[in-house]
C-alpha cells in the first residue's frame, strides 16, 4: 500500500514538474544601462537626453520550428517592468520568437486578453495589430523637443513586417535584452518623427528592432 502511494506521489510530482512553465524575462537597456519608461536618460553617443514615454510590443511565446501553427502572444509593456516576460514550456534546442503578430492570428484569433483591441496596440482603421510601439522625445538640451512616435505594424503582403528571433541554448538563467541604442540612433538619423502605418518604413524599422534584441548572458 505504502509502495503504491509513493509510486503515485512520484508520478504526480513529475507530472507537475513537466507542466511547470518557466519564464523568459525581457530587459530594457541603452547600451549597458537600464532604461525606465517615463524617466529621462542621457546618451553620450547622441549627445542628447532621451525620454521614452511609451514602449510596447508583441512577442510570441517561444515555439519550435515545425510547430508554428498555434502561436500565443504576449503584450509586453515596459511601463510595467514586472510584466515584461514571456512564459515558455518544455522547450529544448532551437526555438523561435516572433516580434509582432502574424497574419494568421491577425485574421482569426479572438480579440481577447493580450489581443484585446482596447490595449492601444490595434489599428481599427485597417484591422491589424501594431507589432512595436515606441513614443518619446529627444530633448536636445534646448527648449525644443524632438518628439517621435513609431507604430510599426503590417502583416499582409507586401507590408508584412513581423520579425523572428532564433534562439539556441535557452537556459533558466537566460533573458532577452532589448537595447535601444541602435533603434534610437536610427530614429534620430531618419529625421522622420512618425511612422504610423504599414509600409516600407515600418518594415525597415522592424528590422532594426529585431537587431536590437539579444539573448543574455
Amino acid at each position: 500500500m505504502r509502495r503504491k502511494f509513493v509510486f503515485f506521489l512520484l508520478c504526480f510530482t513529475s507530472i507537475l514538474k513537466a507542466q511547470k512553465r518557466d519564464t523568459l524575462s525581457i530587459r530594457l537597456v541603452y547600451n549597458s544601462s537600464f532604461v525606465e519608461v517615463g524617466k529621462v536618460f542621457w546618451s553620450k553617443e547622441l549627445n542628447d537626453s532621451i525620454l521614452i514615454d511609451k514602449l510596447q510590443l508583441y512577442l510570441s511565446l517561444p515555439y519550435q520550428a515545425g510547430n508554428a501553427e498555434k502561436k500565443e502572444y504576449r503584450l509586453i509593456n515596459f511601463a510595467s517592468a514586472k510584466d515584461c516576460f514571456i512564459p515558455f514550456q518544455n522547450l529544448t534546442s532551437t526555438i523561435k520568437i516572433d516580434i509582432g503578430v502574424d497574419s494568421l492570428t491577425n485574421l482569426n484569433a479572438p480579440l481577447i486578453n493580450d489581443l484585446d483591441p482596447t490595449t492601444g496596440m490595434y489599428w481599427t482603421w485597417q484591422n491589424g495589430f501594431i507589432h512595436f510601439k515606441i513614443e518619446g522625445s529627444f530633448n536636445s538640451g534646448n527648449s525644443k523637443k524632438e518628439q517621435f512616435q513609431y507604430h510599426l505594424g503590417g502583416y499582409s503582403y507586401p507590408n508584412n513586417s513581423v520579425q523572428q528571433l532564433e534562439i539556441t541554448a535557452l537556459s533558466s538563467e537566460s533573458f532577452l535584452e532589448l537595447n535601444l541604442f541602435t533603434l534610437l540612433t536610427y530614429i534620430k538619423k531618419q529625421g522622420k518623427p512618425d511612422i504610423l502605418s504599414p509600409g516600407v518604413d515600418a518594415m525597415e524599422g522592424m528590422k532594426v528592432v529585431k537587431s536590437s534584441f539579444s539573448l543574455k548572458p
Partner: protein
Amino acid sequence: MKRFILVLLFAVCLLSMKGGGTYPAYFPKPLQKLPTNKYEVFLGRKLFYDPILSEDNSISCSSCHSPYNGFAHTDHALSHGIYDKIGKRNAPALFNLAWQSLFMWDGAINRLDAQALAPIHNPLEMGSSIQEVIKKLQKSEKYPSLFKLAFGDTAINSNRVITAIAQFELGLVSCSSKYDSVRQGKVQFSVQEKKGYDLFKKHCNSCHSEPLFTSGKLSGNALPALELLMDLGRFSITKLPSDSFCFKIPSLRNLSYTYPYMHDGRFSNLNQVLQHYQAISNSGTGKVNTVITKPISNEDKADIVAFLLCLNDRKFIFNPQNLYPKEEKP
C-alpha cells in the same frame, strides 16, 4: 420500405433547394459561418441600431447603413458622422457578408468582427472608442442582461461587442430576388430581362459574377478621381502602384435601394453608371484594370437595367428580423 425511400428522396430534394437552410444551393459555401446563436444576433441588432456607439450618442450603424436601403446610405453621396462631419466615401450596402473576405471600399478590413471598430474610432464617423462604448454599455440598464443571454454572463468587453455586431451582420442574407426565383425554376425572365441577362453575362459578369453579383475582389473601373477627395482606394493600404484607384467590387443586388453608386456616390442612378461604362467601352481605349472592351448601345443599356432590377430583393429589405428591434428580447 418504398415509402421510406420516397420520403428520404423528398427530404434530400428539399435540402438541396436551400444550402444549409438559409441560402440557395447555387450559392457558394460561405467563407464564414452563418450565425446560429439568436441571442448574439439580437444583441448585435440592438447595438447596430443604438447611437450609444458614438461619442455624442447621435450616430448608430444604421445612420449610414439604413435597412430600407439594403443597409447602404442614400441621403448623400458622401456619408457623414457626428457633428455632420463628412467622410470621403459612400457607406456600402451590407448583405451577404458571409461570402466576403474583404470589407470597406479599399478592403482595409479583412475580418468582419473587427470591422465595427473602424467606424467607432473614426473621428468623421462615430468619433468614439471601444473603451468608451464598453463603459456606456456597462452603465446601461438593458445591456448587461442582453450580454448574459448571448454569452452566459453579464461581462461586457470589446470582443463580445464586436462579435455580436458581426453576428447580426452575418445574418443579413439577400437571396430572394426575381433572379433567384428564376434560378430556382419558379418564374421566368421577360424577353427584355433575358436580353439584359445575356448582355450582363457578356459585359459585366467577370467582376460582378453570379450569384452574389460580385467577385469580392478589388478593381479599378476607369473612374476619374475627384480632385477634392483624391481617394486612391486600395493603394492607400498596400502602397502598390497597381492598386491605385482600385476599390472593392460591390454586389449589384438591391440596386433600386442602394443608390447613389460608386465608392463616392457620384452616380445617382443606373443610367449614369451605364453611361460611364458605355463611354469606356466605346472609347476603344479599353480599360484601367477592367475587362470592358466591347461596345454597349443605348438599347443594350435599357436591357441591362431591366435585368439589374431583377436583382432587387424586397423580402430582404422589409424583413422584420433585420429592422429596428422594438422588442426588448428575441
